[in-house]
């Protein structure tokens, strides 16, 4: 996944592009009834693609990912050649013995997403926090990658 600079939307509600899951949402909207129900419940088209946001300020990149209902131990975050990879597995905690399932919209299983970072980051200082089902990875930029102010000398 390459980063595309975010632009302020001009509409209050804007169309979302770029993810297969969004395509699936669109299909669901077009085809009401059985087929939509089928694609929604089976995760046939997409598996699990957790939604991501990427932010940048002077010192850091922050990646925010929605990963509800996971265990901290089951989330893997790694950096390799300037590419951040977030993967993991969500396990089904509930035993479905002697039960009748009415709805099954949640996805259980593995996911992986990678992001190419635009500049170098200090690999040793990356922090990841998991709270309320949201994973926040903070990646500090290296000194070389930070913007520098150069004073102009006047003779």
């Amino acid at each position, binding site marked *: 996944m390459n980063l595309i600079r975010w632009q302020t939307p001009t509409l209050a509600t804007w169309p979302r592009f770029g993810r297969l899951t969004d395509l699936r949402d669109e299909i669901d909207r077009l085809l009401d009834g059985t087929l939509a129900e089928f694609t929604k419940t089976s995760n046939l088209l997409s598996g699990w693609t957790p*939604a991501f946001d990427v932010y940048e300020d002077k010192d850091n990149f922050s990646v925010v990912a929605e990963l509800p209902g996971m265990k901290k131990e089951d989330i893997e975050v790694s950096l390799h050649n300037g590419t951040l990879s977030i993967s993991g597995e969500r396990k089904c905690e509930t035993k479905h013995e002697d039960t009748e399932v009415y709805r099954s*919209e949640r996805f259980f299983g593995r996911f992986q997403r990678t992001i190419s970072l635009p500049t170098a980051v200090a690999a040793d200082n990356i922090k990841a926090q998991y709270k309320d*089902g949201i994973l926040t990875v903070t990646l500090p930029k290296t000194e070389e990658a930070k913007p520098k102010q150069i004073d102009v000398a006047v003779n």
Partner: protein
Amino acid sequence: MNTTVQKHEKAKPVPRAEEFVAPSVDIFETNEGYVLEAEMPGVNKDGLEITLEGAEITITGHRVNVPPAGETLFRERRPVDYRRTFELDPAIDTGRISARMNQGVLTLTLPKSAKAKPQKIAVTD
């Protein structure tokens, strides 16, 4: 297949507070009752609102939405709250419904009332 003809209208600016998405849910029934699990990442215990009205239960989740500082480079998450309504089986004992929030997943336990549970009747001679 039903086709709904939609009129193309110019997008009206919608106040953000009125935007909701339906959370994905799993619902299953056991002998004891029903269990509902809803995915609401970014919602904690304080942002959760569960209302019972007649035979309908509505779950609303308000996000704690504090984006990190700086400009947005890439965005997929939608900064809207969650809401979904379910119709309840009359067998559910509404007084004993309990809710638990764990890492963005709400677990709602809806026990059946004692008289709705299957009972064994002893046969006398």
